[in-house]
Each structure stands twice: as C-alpha cells, then as structure tokens.
C-alpha cells in the first residue's frame, strides 16, 4: 500500500500507456510525463501567486486579494481570463519578431530545466548522466531572452532593465555554479538522481542531507543568495525596480505575453528551488527515518513550497539593494566565500570519515565568517542601523 502510494504516478502512467501498442509506448510515456510537468507547474504558479499576495498582505498589515471566491482563492482564474482577453499591444517602433520570440524562448528554456529534476522516487523525465550541466545550460539560455525582450521593445526603461538583469544574472551565475560544484565534488556525479541517492542514508534517525554538513550549510546559504539574484527576486529585484524602471524589461509587454513573462519568472523560481532541494536538502527523501512511509513526491513538493515561502518572506522583509551594492556583494563577498567553501569541501572529501573533518571544516568556515564580520565591524563599515525621517 505504502509502496503503491509512493509510486502512484509512475503506476498511473504505466497503466495509461499500457493501452497503446508496444511500439508507441516509449513515446507516449515521455509525452505523458511532459504533459504532467507542463500542467502541474503552471497550476502551482497560479496557487503561488495567491499565496504570495496573501502572505505579502499579511506582512504589510493588509488583507490582500479577498474578492474572487472564498478568501480570494480564485483570483488567478480571474487574472488568467483577464490576461487572455486583454489587447496585445506591440509598440509601433518595436522589433516585432524579436518582441514576439522573447517570452516564448524564456518559457521554453525554463521548462526544459524541469526535465532533469527528480521529483520523487523513479520520477524523473530524463535521467541524464550530465543532468546538472544540462540544467545550467538551460538556465544560461534564459539570459538571452531577457535581453531580447528589453532590446526589441525600443524603450529606454526596457533596455536599462534588461541590461541590469543580464549583468546581475551573469554575475550571480558564478557563485551559483561554484556552490553547486561542491555537491558534485562530494557526490562524485553530475546526475541529479545519483546526488539524491548519495544523501539518502540515515544515522540516528536523521538524514544525511548535505545541508547538515559544514560545507553544505555554507554552500546552501551561498546558493540561496545566488538563486534569489538569478530569479530577480527581492531584495535583488533591481531589473524591475518599479520606482526607477516602470517594470524593467517587460515594460512594453501586455496581455498574454506579459503573463508568459510572469509565468517564466515563477517557473524559474520553482525549478531553481527544486534544484536546491535536490542538491542540498536531500531531494525526495524524508527528513526523519520514521517518516519514510510518506510518499517521496510529497517531500519533494513540500521542500519546494518551503523554499517558495522563504522567497516570499524575504520579499516582504528586505529592502532592495543598490546596483553597486549588488555587484560588490557578488564579487567581493559571495564569490570569495564560495571559493573558500570549495577548498573546505575538498578537505572534507580527503579527510575521510570521522569527527576530525567536522571539527576542521566547521572551524575554518566559522573563523572565516566570524572574522570577516568582526573585521568589518571594527572598521566601522557596519554599525547599528540608523533611521532618518522626513521632518
């Protein structure tokens, strides 16, 4: 029973495909999995928009959407109908072909990333030997679509937003890759299913997730920072800073094309959270040994939604950075710390089992972070927060 529930989607697929002639079965199986991904994540996107607006409302001491349906939960349906029926305006001087292609390229590239994510036991579309490499290759292609959108609109705000977005995404891609590389070094594989398997053990009822190791914790922090910047989320949402740039690179988009950008942004958030879950949080494995009877897909999506919740929380809490702060943060703090973490991970790998590596690795990382913090404090760069009010 437990096993059936765990594999319910796999069994369902096999049962459906079983009705077809044998020669069609592989193709039909893949198509079915693709259809599941293409339906599931936009549905999750619709849900997340409500949760985000409700959560932000809560944080900002207001109600949030509450008119459409019970507690405003049908708001995304209304929004979807609105964006489908809205007039699609293309600026007169815009480059029509590129303007049209940009959202399409973005959504396609983002959807490709889901192909290698293991969403449960035996639930991965393509179990690729170089899965992580594939994921990052697809992630890198989204940058070009952002540029296409900004450039083809022939609008200075769009272009500025696109330039900011591309510069930011390239800068933070370096720490993103470097923090993921530590996991590859320890797991010894680029295949995401193998990485999940490497974290699937338990000792004293607690899981062997990489986040519970010194290098994994530091790496996860850096990964979280880099993903927030990579998905242009607050506090790194300069590319679409409303007070400066109207809406950034999608200023000149309306109707369903705008909805596609919105969708692409959230899908990127889902897939990069899913990758973080896979790399550091043990993928679909349960957090305690006595909870392993709960289906694996439940854990994957719980961890995914938890990451999304943290994204929303940060958006409601932190103010936006300035452009120079953003770049300094990437190159002068995140990148050196990622490089240090790389060294620590190598040390962890070659010190072998035992308590010694825990002590040494923790000591190095703690010394680096605490030393940096104390040094900055002493230099007077970081002090108590000061507030200034208009008088």
């Amino acid at each position, binding site marked *: 029973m437990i096993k059936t529930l765990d594999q319910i989607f796999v069994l369902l697929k096999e049962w459906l495909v079983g009705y077809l002639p044998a020669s069609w079965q592989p193709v039909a199986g893949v198509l079915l999995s693709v259809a599941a991904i293409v339906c599931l994540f936009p549905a999750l996107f619709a849900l997340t928009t409500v949760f985000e607006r409700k959560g932000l409302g809560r944080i900002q001491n207001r109600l949030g959407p509450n008119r459409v349906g019970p507690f405003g939960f049908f708001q995304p349906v209304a929004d979807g109908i609105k964006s489908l029926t809205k007039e699609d305006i293309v600026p007169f001087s815009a*480059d029509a072909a*590129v303007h049209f292609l940009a959202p399409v390229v973005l959504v396609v590239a983002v959807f490709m990333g889901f192909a290698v994510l293991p969403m449960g036991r035996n639930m991965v579309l393509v179990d*690729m*030997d*170089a899965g992580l*490499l*594939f994921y*990052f*290759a*697809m*992630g*890198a*292609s989204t*940058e*070009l679509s952002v*540029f*296409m959108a900004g*450039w083809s609109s022939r609008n200075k705000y769009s*272009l500025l937003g696109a*330039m900011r977005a*591309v510069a930011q995404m*390239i800068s933070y*891609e370096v720490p993103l890759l470097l923090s993921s590389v530590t996991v590859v070094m320890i797991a010894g*594989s*680029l295949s995401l299913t193998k990485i999940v398997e490497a974290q699937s053990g338990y000792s004293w009822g607690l899981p062997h997730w990489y986040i519970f190791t010194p290098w994994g914790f530091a790496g996860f922090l850096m990964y979280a920072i880099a993903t927030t910047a990579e998905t242009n989320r607050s506090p790194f949402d300069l590319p679409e800073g409303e007070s400066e740039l109207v809406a950034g690179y999608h200023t000149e988009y309306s109707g369903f094309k705008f909805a596609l950008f919105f969708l692409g942004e959230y899908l990127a958030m889902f897939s990069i959270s899913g990758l973080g879950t896979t790399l550091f949080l043990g993928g679909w494995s349960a957090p305690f040994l006595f909870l392993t009877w709960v289906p694996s897909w439940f854990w994957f999506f719980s961890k995914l939604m938890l990451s999304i919740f943290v994204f929303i929380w940060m958006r409601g809490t932190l103010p936006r950075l300035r452009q120079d702060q953003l770049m300094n943060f990437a190159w002068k703090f995140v990148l050196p710390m990622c490089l240090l973490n790389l060294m620590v991970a190598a040390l962890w790998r070659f010190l072998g089992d035992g308590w010694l590596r825990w002590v040494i690795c923790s000591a190095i990382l703690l010394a680096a972070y605490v030393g940096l913090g104390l040094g900055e404090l002493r230099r007077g760069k970081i002090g108590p927060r000061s507030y200034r009010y208009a008088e």
Partner: protein
Amino acid sequence: MSFVFYVLAALTVAGGLAAMLLKNTVHCALALTVAFAGLALLFLELDAQFAGFAQILVYIGAVAILVVFAILLTRGSETPKDGVFSHTWLAGLAVAAAVFAVLGWAVLQAAPLLPGASPAPVVTVQQIGDALMGRYVLPLEIAGVLLTAAMIGAVIVALHEKEGPK
C-alpha cells in the same frame, strides 16, 4: 546521416547565413546564437553530452551575451545608410571559397584512410572529468592561469586612474 542530422545542419547553416546577411547588427548576433544552438544540438546528436552542454553554457550563455553587449555599448544597432556589405566582398568570397575548398579536400582525402565504420566510443562526463583532473591537469591549470591573468588585465585596463600626485 540521419534525418535529424539534416534538419540540424540546415538550422546551423541557416543561422550562419542569417548572421551574415541580415542588416540589423543585433539580429545578426541573435542569428549567430541560432547557429551556436544548432552546433550544440549536432554535438548532442553525436552523443557528446559534455561538448553539447558546454557549447550551450559557454556560447549561448556567455559569448552571445558578450556579443550583444559589445554591440550595444559601442555603436548601437542602427543600420548604416550605405548598406552593410563591404566593397571588397568579391575578394572575401574568393578567400572563403578557397578555405572551404582546402578544408573539404582535406576531409575527402582523409576519409578513405580511416578504418571502416568503427563503433563510436561511449564517453561519459565522468571520464572526461577524470581525464581533465588526471592526465591533462597541467594544460587545464595553465589555461586557468592564462584566463585569470587576462581577467586581471582587463580589470586593470578598465580601472579609473587615481587623481593627484603619487
């Protein structure tokens, strides 16, 4: 030579041609990206996963962005009034045709010398990693040092010079 190969080859060649023939410089850069993507897919069609994904990651993710940034930061994407074709296009065509002829001749000459259709070796990404970290670690390190030096040099060139006496 499968059907997929012909489709990908057509895509790559079309991208390359469009990169040459289009009038708008940014369009040319985007067409070049299509050619890069076609090449990456050709690598993947040959079961060379590492080369294919590295091609996408480096060329589409970085080089294409660099190209469009360079175009936007220098002279803009306006099309010059007197067309984009050089006056010496005939000579250029001749040189290109000569290079193509030499390459084609070399390939055609080499084909009979190769042993008959041997099965393609299966190379996993892990093997490539082992080779890079083992046998070819010195070239890798030298390339890394070279790139770092180039980057530092670029930063120094771009740095503002400090005002006042030294």
